[in-house]
Structures are given as C-alpha cells and as structure tokens.
C-alpha cells in the first residue's frame, strides 16, 4: 500500500519530516521525528540498511560535528576544559546531539525519495507546474549524483594505485592529496555536461513548456489520506512547539 504512493505524496512527506528538523530545538521532539522518519522510510520500502551502512563509514564526521558544535556552544555545566579554554559543556553536547538528529532526519527522510524513479520525480514536478527547465535540472542532478560518487571513489583508488597510501601521509599532505581528487572529477563532470548538451541538441531536445507525457501520475485515495494526515500532524507539532 505504502510502496505505491504517488511521488508527490512522498515529496510532501519528506517536507513534513524535514521542516520540524530545521525548526524544532528540542532533542525529545527531534528523536520522535527521527523515529517516525525511520518507520515511514521502512514502510515505503527504501533500502535503509544500505544507507545506514554507508553512514556508519562516516561516523567520525558526525562525531567531529557534534564536538565542534559543542565547543562553540558554551552553555550549561562545564564538563571538560584545558586551562581556561572550555571544550565540552552539557549545553554544548545537547546542541551537538540535536544537530546530529537533524542531519539524520534529513538524510533518512530523503531516502523516501529513492523509492521513486527519476522519471516519476520529474513528472511529479511537471504536474505541479514547476517550470520544465527546473524539473529537468533536478532529473539530471539525480542521474549524475551516483556517477559523481563513483568517480570520486575511482579517482581515490587510482591515486592509491600510484603507490600513495593516504593513511600514511601527514595530515597536511593528506589534505593536499584530497585536493587532487577534485580536479579530475570537476573537469570530467564539465566534459560530461558538454557532451550531454550536444547529444540532446543533436536529438532536437528543447525544454519547451508544452509537453505531452506517456506517464501521467494520478493521486489515489491513500495519497489524499497520507497528505492530509501529514499536513495536520506537522501543523499540530509546530503549534504545540511554539505555543506550549
């Protein structure tokens, strides 16, 4: 039932989940939204395991972000300090955890969109009267993102196969090395974009606003139901958060 939701319903769901992530500043409420995001993501059929596995590889980035957030938010009880310089405070850790919760809600709610294909997303935006230039750009971005990720990975492997072990380099040299990943990736991306635009022009493609489409999306009853529930819930959450 949930797996056949219209792509527009999924967009509204993602917006309803990510809005409190940005506006709410209460760790308990954020935890509740995160749990709802995880459950919805599982019901709708996204490959949450795979995404969590990828996230586990960058746990240290999350940890650093919490730490940095905590250092720059000096409120509450002092927990760790070096001389007169306070590193960790109770309030700082809470802010850091809130920040991580926000990030997780946004990432996990966005996984809902991965259950629709690129064509459906473009069609959904078109039927919402989003200008075709914009929906087409979105579709190209969705198509190119995994390629970009693969290219960064391949370039890093290529650098290592030149006999360089990034882990064994000094920190400053390692940062310098990572800079070299981006020149081939950036140049290849520009080249690919050029080739794509020539190929599209050669096939007489133009982003005309008047288009016919084989795929036409239609809301089902369940879509109306989910959209209504989501909008009511988000309004209730924000109302209670701001007025109580």
């Amino acid at each position, binding site marked *: 039932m949930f797996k056949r939701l219209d792509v527009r319903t999924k967009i509204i769901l993602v917006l309803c989940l990510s809005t409190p992530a940005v506006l709410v500043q209460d760790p308990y409420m954020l935890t509740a939204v995160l749990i709802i995001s995880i459950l919805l993501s599982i019901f709708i059929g996204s490959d949450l395991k795979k995404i969590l596995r990828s996230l586990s590889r960058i746990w240290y980035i999350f940890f650093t972000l919490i730490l940095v957030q905590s250092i720059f938010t000096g409120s509450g009880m002092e927990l760790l300090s070096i001389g007169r310089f306070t590193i960790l405070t109770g309030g700082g850790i809470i802010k850091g955890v809130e920040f991580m919760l926000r990030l997780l809600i946004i990432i996990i709610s966005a996984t809902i969109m991965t259950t629709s294909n690129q064509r459906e997303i473009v069609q959904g935006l078109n039927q919402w009267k989003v200008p075709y230039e914009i929906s087409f750009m979105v579709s190209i971005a969705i198509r190119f993102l995994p390629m970009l990720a693969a290219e960064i990975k391949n*370039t890093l492997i*290529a650098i290592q*196969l*030149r006999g*360089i072990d*990034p882990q064994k380099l000094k920190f400053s040299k390692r940062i310098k090395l990572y800079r*070299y990943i981006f*020149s081939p990736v950036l140049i290849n991306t520009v080249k690919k974009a050029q080739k794509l635009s020539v190929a599209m022009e050669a096939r007489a493609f133009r982003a005309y606003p008047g288009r016919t489409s084989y795929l036409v999306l239609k809301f089902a009853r369940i879509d109306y139901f989910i959209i209504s529930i989501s909008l009511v819930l988000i309004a209730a959450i924000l109302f209670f958060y701001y007025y109580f």
Partner: protein
Amino acid sequence: MTGILEPEKGSVFLEGKDLSTVTPGQTGRKIGYLFQNPDLQIFTLSVKEELLFTHRFLGDPSEDIEPEVDRMLELFHLSSLKDQVPFNLSRGERQRLALAAVMMNGPGYLILDEPTTGLDSIRKKILLDILKGQLENGTGMSIISHDHDFIRDLSHRIIEIDDGRLIEKDV
C-alpha cells in the same frame, strides 16, 4: 589482481603476500595499473607535474627525479607537451601520459585495461613499440583487450572469454 575487488573465492598473492592484506598503495608501488579511461588517473594541471605526482607525495626531491621525467617524456613522445594541461590533450596523448605516469614508479608488472581504446593506427604502433620495449626490459604485463592484432603482437599467452568460458590459446 590489484586488490580493487575482492576475489569471490581463492586468493591473489603478490610476492608471497595475500593481496587482501595489502593496501592499494603498497600494490601500486609494485604493479602499474592503466585504467580503461585515462581521465580517471590524471590528477594534475600539467603533463610534467603529472609525472612528478607520486614522487612529490612520497617525498623524493624533484631534482633527483628530473632526468627520469625527461626520459619518460621522450619515451612516450610527450616532450613537446610537457607544459600542457593534460585535460586538453587528445585521447591518445592522455593514454600515453597515464601510462608514463604509471611507469614512473618503475613497476615490475603492468595491468593494462583496453589500452588501445580510442587510438588510431599510428598511436597504436607507438604504444606497441613502447610496450615491446618494456617487455624486453623484463616488465611483465597482463593486457585486457578486444584488439586481437595488438594482443597477438605482444603476448606469450592469450586467454579468451567466450560465452562465460575461459579458452586458452597458444601463441
């Protein structure tokens, strides 16, 4: 064979060490790998800098390596292009640059993935002569290619994959 992918069964050994226990960096110092798409392994903004890339990170002073860079530029017919931006070179030139950069490490073994893709007959001949030279110098190599003529001129052993089966052919 370079440790990029893990074997589904069995093990690959490099100088007695299981490749799964060796980092790609350690493998790269012994095996030179040429990607099918040379753009993936060009990182710098000049041809000469590209050849110096590994040595710069491994801490070799540039002066000591300069004669080797000049020799590689000469060998791969890149001397006139040494200050050019690699991404503006032709496909064949980029292919030769990628191979020259791999050779700068002095690998004892080369793995070349479709090295003739996008090369015209003249460039193919240049590449063939370079690889023959490397074979004579004692560098071993495995070449993955659809170019039968190119392979026949270089190989001591050919393994074909036909409909998922391995067929060994005598040369």
